[in-house]
C-alpha cells in the first residue's frame, strides 16, 4: 500500500519535473527546480548519515570530489558526460569509504569535528594543485547531453525513492539499531563499523553524483564552492525541513532556497536566514516543517473519527521509532 502510494508520489514529481524542464527549460522556475534537485540530493545524503547518528560535515567535500572528478574527466580526458559523472561518483565513493573506515571508529563530536576538518583540508588541497586550476578552479565543463536538466530531475526522483526504500529495508533497521544502540547491535553480530562505512559510502556516492551534475550544469567549479558552509546549509535544509521523513529534507531545500533567492535582492542576508531558521527550528519546531505537516494530518484524521492509522497495513517503518512512541 505504502509502496504504491509513494510510487504515485514519485511519478507525480517526475511528471511535473519533466514538464518543466522539457517545455520551459529557460524559465526562472526551472532554474530554481534544478537547484532544488541538486541541493536536495546533498540534503538527503547528509540525512542518510544522520540516520546512523552521525553529523557528516564532509558532505560538501564528497560533493566537491564528485564535481572535481567529473570536471577532470570531461575537460582533461575528454570522456563522455555520462562516464565523466561516473568517474566523479567513483572518486567520491572510494575516498569516503577510506575516510569512513578510519574515522567512523570514533562517534559523535569526534566524527563531526574530523569531517569538518576534512572538508576544509580538501578545499585547501584544491587551491594548492596547479593542474586542478588552483584558486580559480576548472572552467569549460561542458555537457554532451542536451537534456541534462531532464536527467537531473529523473535522477533526483529515482534516488530519493531509492533511499526511501533503503530506509524501510532491513539495512534501514540495522541503521536504526546502530544509531541508538551501537554496542548492542555489535553484540547481535552486526559488523557495525562496516555498516556505518557502507552507509557513508552510499551517501557520498549520492553527494558525488550531485557534484558531477553540478559541475556540468554550472560549467565552472572553484574550491570555494565546496567549503564547510555548504555542509552547514545542508544541515539547515534537513533540520528546518524536518528530519523525520526524506521528503522533509527536500522541502527544507525548496523553502530555504526560495527565501534566500528572494532576499538576495536586499544583499547577502542568506546566512542570516539560515541562522535564524536553524535556531527557530530547534527552539520552536524540533520536527521541522515536515513534522508540522504530519502532526496536522494526524490531527485532521483523528478529528474525522478515523482511528485506523498506518498500522492497519503492517508496521510503518518509515516513521522513526522515537516519533512513533510519542504518537501513540
Amino acid at each position, binding site marked *: 500500500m505504502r509502496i504504491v502510494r509513494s510510487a504515485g508520489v514519485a511519478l507525480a514529481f517526475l511528471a511535473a519535473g519533466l514538464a518543466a524542464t522539457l517545455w520551459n527549460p529557460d524559465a526562472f522556475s526551472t532554474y530554481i527546480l534544478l537547484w532544488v534537485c541538486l541541493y536536495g540530493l546533498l540534503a538527503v545524503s547528509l540525512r542518510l548519515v544522520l540516520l546512523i547518528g552521525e*553529523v557528516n560535515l564532509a558532505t560538501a567535500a564528497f560533493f566537491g570530489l564528485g564535481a572535481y572528478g567529473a570536471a577532470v574527466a570531461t575537460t582533461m580526458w575528454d570522456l563522455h558526460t555520462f562516464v565523466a559523472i561516473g568517474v566523479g561518483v567513483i572518486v567520491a565513493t572510494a575516498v569516503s569509504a577510506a575516510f569512513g573506515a*578510519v574515522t567512523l571508529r570514533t562517534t559523535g563530536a*569526534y566524527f563531526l569535528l574530523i569531517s569538518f576538518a576534512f572538508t*576544509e583540508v580538501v578545499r585547501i588541497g584544491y587551491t*594548492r594543485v596547479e593542474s586542478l586550476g588552483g584558486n580559480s578552479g576548472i572552467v569549460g565543463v561542458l555537457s554532451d547531453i542536451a537534456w541534462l536538466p531532464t536527467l537531473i530531475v529523473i535522477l533526483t526522483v529515482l534516488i530519493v525513492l531509492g533511499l526511501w526504500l533503503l530506509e524501510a529495508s532491513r539495512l534501514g533497521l540495522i541503521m536504526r539499531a546502530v544509531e541508538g544502540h551501537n554496542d548492542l547491535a555489535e553484540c547481535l553480530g552486526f559488523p557495525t563499523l562496516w555498516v556505518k562505512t557502507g552507509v557513508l559510502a552510499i551517501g557520498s556516492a549520492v553527494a558525488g553524483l550531485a557534484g558531477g551534475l553540478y559541475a556540468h550544469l554550472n560549467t565552472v567549479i572553484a574550491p570555494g564552492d565546496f567549503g564547510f558552509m555548504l555542509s552547514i546549509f545542508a544541515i539547515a535544509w534537513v533540520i528546518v525541513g524536518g528530519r523525520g521523513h526524506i521528503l522533509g529534507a527536500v522541502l527544507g531545500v525548496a523553502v530555504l532556497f526560495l527565501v534566500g533567492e528572494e532576499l538576495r535582492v536586499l544583499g547577502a542576508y542568506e546566512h542570516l536566514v539560515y541562522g*535564524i531558521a*536553524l*535556531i527557530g527550528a*530547534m*527552539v520552536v519546531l524540533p520536527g521541522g516543517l515536515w513534522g508540522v505537516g504530519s502532526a496536522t494530518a494526524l490531527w485532521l484524521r483523528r478529528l474525522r473519527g478515523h482511528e485506523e492509522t498506518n498500522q492497519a497495513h503492517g508496521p510503518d517503518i518509515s516513521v522513526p521509532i522515537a516519533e512513533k512512541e510519542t504518537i501513540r
Partner: protein
Amino acid sequence: MDYALQIIINGLQIGAVYVLFAIGLTLIFGVMKIVNFAHGELFTGAAFIVLLIVTRGTASTALPISVMYLAALVVSIIIIGVAGLFMYEVLFKRFAGDMISGLLVAVGLALSLQTAFRVMFGTSPQRVPSMVSGTVKVAGAVITTERLLILGLAVLTTAVLALYLKHTRTGLALRAVSEDREAAELQGINYQRISRSGFVLGSALAAVAAVLIAPSTVVYPLVGVNLLMKGFIIIILGGLGSVVGAVLAGFLLGMIESAAATLLNVSIATILSFLAVIGVLLVRPEGLMGNADRS
C-alpha cells in the same frame, strides 16, 4: 641555529594563543557536551571591541597605547562574558547534553552573528595598532618584543587558569562535571550553576585570546571562523574535554604551523596538522589525553 630558535619562539607564541582559544572550546564541550560553533564569533566580537577601543582611544586621548589595551582587555572580557551568559541562559541551557541539537543552535547563532558583524563593521580587514614596537635579540635570534609579550601573557593566563581548575571549588567541580556528570551531581554539585560558570569562563577565554591575537593580525567578520577550524583540530588531537590535552595539542599545532610557514607554506600547515589528527586517531581514537570512555 638562530633560525631554529626563531621557529620555536614563533611556534610557542602562536600555540599559546591557540591554547587559550581551545581551552574555552574544550571546557564548554566538557561540561555541556556542546560543540560551540559560535565560539569563533565570541572571539570576533572581542576582536572588534579591541579595534574600536584602541583605535578610537588613541585618536581622542593622549593616554599610552598600553593603557588602551588594558582597557580593551577588561571591557571585552566583561562584554563577551555577559554575551556568553546570555547565550547560555536563552539558548544553550535547554540543550545541555544533547550534542546534535546544541550543535545546530550554535551553528545558527554563528551564522546570524557573522551577518550582524558584517552589517556593523563591513567586510574589509582592519589593522589594530601594535601593543609595543621594537625587537629583542635572544641568543642570536631576532624576535619582536610584541611576540614575547603575547607569549608571556598567554602563558601567564594559562597558568592562572590551571591553578584555578586545580585548587578552587568551582574549578574542581568543573573538572568533575566534565569527567562524569552524574557522579558529580551525586556528590551534590549543582550542574546548572557549574555549566553556567563553564560557559562564561570559556567565553571570557575567547575574549582574552582575541585581545592577544588582535595586534598581530587583521580583524574582519570571519576572523573567528578561521580560528575555529584550528580550535577543533586542537581539541580532537588533545581529547575532547581535556584541558591538559588542549595545552599540549595547541603548542604542537603552533609548532607545526610556525615550522611549515617558515620552511614551506602556510596552507601546507593546515594539511599537515590534519594528517597529524588522522594519525593520532588511528592509534588513539580518544585523542592524546582523552577519556577512553566517551559515552
